[in-house]
């Protein structure tokens, strides 16, 4: 796991995920500028029932969670030095990010129906 997401590869993955996150944010901002923000449950649910929106959002969260993991890992390794504390803090964030991923996948899947 750590060998796969370290060094030059982590550097590259961090930039690739950043590019997609930027693309998604750009689309979100543009669509918000043109359509405004939804004011009713119905219009909001219609947005999220689109397979295109949920697919792009699922990809967005995949990129986001990988980006968040590489970033937070670098920060933790910089500031938390004792081995035990490092393990605990890293594990907490790993669990938080994985749970977030499963959770949002379920939310997006339910929204299609």
């Amino acid at each position, binding site marked *: 796991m750590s060998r796969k997401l370290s060094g030059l590869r982590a550097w590259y993955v961090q*930039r690739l995920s950043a590019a997609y996150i930027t693309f998604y944010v750009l689309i979100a901002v543009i669509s918000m500028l043109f359509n405004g923000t939804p004011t009713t449950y119905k219009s909001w649910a219609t947005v999220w029932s689109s397979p295109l929106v949920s697919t792009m959002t699922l990809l967005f969260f995949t990129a986001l969670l990988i980006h968040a993991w590489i970033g937070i890992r670098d920060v933790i390794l910089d500031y938390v030095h004792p081995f035990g504390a490092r393990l605990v803090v890293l594990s907490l964030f790993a669990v938080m990010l994985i749970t977030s991923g499963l959770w949002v996948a379920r939310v997006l899947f339910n929204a299609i129906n």
Partner: protein
Amino acid sequence: MTQIAERPRFLNLMKIRLPLPGVLSILHRISGVLMVLAIPFLIYLLDLSLRDAAGFAAAAGVLDMLLIKLGLAVIVWGLFHHLFAGIRYLLLDMDIGVEKQQARASSWIVFGVSIVVTLIVLGVIW
């Protein structure tokens, strides 16, 4: 080995005057950590808003609370600061704007653009 232990240390944070690109850099880090911590809360809001009409109203109510509004403003600013600072780092990686004066100028641009875009987006949301 004993030599290394005796190296001088100047770690009084109050005495370190960070240059502008340094301020940008630490804010890139802080905004990143804040956004990571915000992820579960944002997913919770999305979940709540998509449950049913009552859930949508509840989520809108949460977003209308003053403290949440302040937090959201920080997160939106964090997002655009992080994004534009990130683009600046990409350019630096490509050896663009590495000179001291250019690096200072591009830092000012990142601060300015991210605040303007944040205000526009918050203006649309609220």
